[in-house]
């Protein structure tokens, strides 16, 4: 089964995008990334500081992995901040990809959909390929597509909450509404069963970080998510049975012995 995913002009085999933050150590991060078999990792820009040049060391590690990097605009609260950050990221990371985050609220880290659409349009105009971190709002999704986005990344639940898909109804509606747009569940997944569920619903990929990095054994958890994703994707292709309310015997009733 050839089942690759095309994100803008890039074809990937793995449907797992993994964050690079919050790991107990760089070595564990590298191990987790390798065992996830992911082809895309997310990174950010932060202030370089002091003489240790922490960022340079991090960047060496990432470059050695030889993966696609997807820089984010985490922490930006306005379109302008996000746009400037994206331009800085393009230069540093040498990619036109950007995971566009415009954060609107501190407790839930939910997107500011107004700033998001504005920044997506401007960045697309400037030649970026935007991966917008968005909500499950279908109208916002339409606006992002009109702004030039060719991928949508709705949240499953608040970033780092690990709650899984808070509103499966809404994500199902989104999948049905945009059958041909690559849809990535970004944020909020906590367990591999959540990832399998997303894939069974027909989502194209998963992006996460905390659930792997904060597991007791991040590398093992990365492997687990990777396998659950693949399993969920196969289930989607295998066309699951419909749920029923009543039971139905699996063992044949015909030929049942009379032994009483």
């Amino acid at each position, binding site marked *: 089964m050839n089942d690759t995913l095309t994100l803008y002009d890039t074809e990937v085999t793995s449907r797992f995008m993994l*964050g*690079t*933050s*919050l*790991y107990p150590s760089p070595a564990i*991060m590298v191990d987790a990334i390798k065992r996830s078999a992911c082809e895309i990792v*997310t*990174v*950010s*820009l*932060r*202030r*370089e*500081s002091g*003489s240790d*040049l*922490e*960022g*340079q060391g*991090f*960047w060496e590690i*990432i470059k050695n992995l030889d993966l696609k990097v997807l*820089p*984010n605009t*985490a922490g930006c609260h306005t379109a*302008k*901040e996000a746009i*400037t*950050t994206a*331009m*800085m*990221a393009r*230069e*540093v*990371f040498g990619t036109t990809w950007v995971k566009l985050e415009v954060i609107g609220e501190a407790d839930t880290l939910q997107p500011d959909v107004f700033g998001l659409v504005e920044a997506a349009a401007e960045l697309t105009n400037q030649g970026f390929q935007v991966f917008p971190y968005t909500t499950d709002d279908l109208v916002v999704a339409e606006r992002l597509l009109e702004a030039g986005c060719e991928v949508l990344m709705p949240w499953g639940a608040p*970033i*780092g909450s690990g709650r899984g898909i808070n509103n499966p109804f809404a994500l199902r509606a989104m999948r049905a509404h945009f059958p041909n747009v690559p849809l990535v569940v970004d944020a909020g997944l906590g367990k591999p069963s959540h990832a399998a569920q997303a894939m069974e619903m027909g989502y194209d990929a998963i992006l*996460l*970080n*905390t659930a792997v990095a904060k597991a007791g054994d991040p590398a093992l958890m990365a492997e687990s998510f990777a396998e659950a994703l693949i399993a969920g994707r196969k289930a989607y292709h295998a066309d699951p049975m419909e749920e029923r309310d009543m039971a139905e015997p699996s063992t044949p009733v015909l030929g049942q012995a009379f032994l009483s």
Partner: protein
Amino acid sequence: MNLTVNGQAHKSDAVTLTALLEELGYKDATVATARNGEFVSATSRDVEQVEDGDKIEILAPMKGG
């Protein structure tokens, strides 16, 4: 000349961003720069003047989710 570099007060006589980076030891580092909230590309740093009161951001690759 008083600058704010990455949020810290910094006294400098650097005329350009390139000079400032050199002064800070980031000459060969992989960094991106912004001056007063506007991106300054690497190729413009030689000509981008630094002025008193400027807010300079020097950003490096970092972990992210």
